[in-house]
């Protein structure tokens, strides 16, 4: 947050603790990202897949790698009591940033029979966090001894249609008090411009989400299943052609070219606070994209 407040163009990264008790991959990913990002998000059962709890890897990348974590917290799996417990634990472990999310519905994940909780939503979670941080109180005004100090982040969907409803929803949360916004992935500078223009009145730092494609099948999956994802046909065609010509390696190279170009465009023509890079499982591409863009 210090670098954001100082007006520096920043990058954040993202890591996914998967269905394992092994922390090595997260640690390795954090090491790759460390010199290029100011913080790394640790996801909380993304798309409702049951993975390792996000708090432990958040703590471990801070302790072992020395990079700040953005501890993602969804309201899907825990009620307000459990959320409070985990947030106090996060504070005790030195977590500085929390991304407050509602979370994807259980039925889209790998355990669709689970009872969805949603006792709170992302807005009421922000409300609870603010009470904890600003007043040292829980939701029922009970005193918290030594309350945590977090920077609060929220997510936003620049692809949302209708966008007006999305903007008003963000406004609702910003009014409660949030420190930064990270967006879902976007694939065109135009989209970034539209979104930043529509949200400029909120005066909140916004990091634009960028997610390169690990493979052609991942791109197809995202286009088909992720709500609101719009991948311009030129990008799709370039990647298809690359795959035909040179296989996997050529797809990676095309990714670096496409996304460094996008990054350059965002940096040069918008007033985005920074970029949130999501390259789950191929973190090595993040430094290459940033270097190719040559904008640091």
């Amino acid at each position, binding site marked *: 947050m210090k670098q954001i407040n100082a007006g520096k163009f920043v990058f954040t990264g993202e890591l996914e603790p998967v269905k394992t008790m092994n922390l090595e991959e997260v640690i390795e990913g954090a090491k790759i990202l460390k010199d290029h990002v100011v913080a790394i998000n640790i996801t909380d059962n993304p798309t409702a897949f049951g993975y390792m709890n996000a708090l432990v890897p958040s703590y471990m990348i801070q302790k072992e790698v020395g990079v700040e974590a953005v501890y993602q917290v969804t309201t899907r799996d825990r009620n307000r009591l459990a959320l409070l417990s985990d947030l106090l634990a996060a504070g005790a472990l030195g977590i500085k940033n929390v991304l407050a999310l*509602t979370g994807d519905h259980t039925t*889209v994940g790998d355990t669709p029979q689970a009872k969805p909780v949603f006792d709170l*939503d992302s807005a009421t979670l922000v409300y609870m966090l603010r009470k904890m941080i600003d007043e040292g109180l829980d939701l029922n005004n009970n005193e918290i001894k030594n309350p945590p100090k977090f920077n609060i982040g929220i997510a936003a969907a620049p692809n949302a249609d209708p966008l007006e409803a999305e903007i008003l*929803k963000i406004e609702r949360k910003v009014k409660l008090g949030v420190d930064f916004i990270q967006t879902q992935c976007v694939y065109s500078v135009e989209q970034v411009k539209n979104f930043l223009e529509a949200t400029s009145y909120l005066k909140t730092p916004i990091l634009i989400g960028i997610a390169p494609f690990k493979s052609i099948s991942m791109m197809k999956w995202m286009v088909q299943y992720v709500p609101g994802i719009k991948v311009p046909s030129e990008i799709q065609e370039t990647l298809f052609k690359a795959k035909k010509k040179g296989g996997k390696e050529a797809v990676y190279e095309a990714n670096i070219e496409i996304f460094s170009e996008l990054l350059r465009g965002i940096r040069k023509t918008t007033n985005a606070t920074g970029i949130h890079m999501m390259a789950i499982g191929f973190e090595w591409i993040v430094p290459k994209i940033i270097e190719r863009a040559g904008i640091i």
Partner: protein
Amino acid sequence: MIIVQQKPLNEIFEMTKNLKSLLIVGCDGCASIIQVGGERQAQVLKTLLEMEKKVKGEETPVIKAISILRQCDRQVAATALNPLREDYEAILSLGCGVGVQTISEVCKPTLIIPANDTKFLGMHDTRKGKFQELCSACGECILFETGGICPITRCAKSLLNGPCGGQSKGKCEVGGGKNDCAWILIFNSLKDRNRLDLFTKFRPPKDYRLSGHPREIGGEDEDQEVSS
């Protein structure tokens, strides 16, 4: 309206097997209006049960089919059923879960069998020929703030501050994009009414004690209790 749906016949046959006599009771309330549990359906079920016994070559029980005004009214149910219940080994109710339980209470110790599954509180959309859940009876109505559309019931996550990122062009990702996103419906409804201020308003965490079971209203004065 309380929306009910008849159980599979095999289930009803299983629950009614070996009975010597059976009183089938329809309900003239919701179940009758949606043509699932009125007098006509009671008569049809009587015929089906008799046919099933005949096909199996079993002895046909004595079956009577009637319908009463409201199964969910203790006094109505008691008045209508008390003169009959002793003549039958069991009562098959075509009412909702409330009706079944009311009859079970007033017709002790006669065995009670539910013929229906109670689905939800909803509306009958005759144009589309379907029933739609609209209210969860959560105990704390916010329909004023949400343009007359209940997010507790119609949002898959029951969000108080939606929409979430799971909607696309007004459709919810839960259920494969077929269902409307309640929060986009709310947005459009409030926009049409020029009340987007209500949309942007923050709604604090819900008090789930209000929807915690079991719930009761009134009845503090025991003298007023209706005798069965």
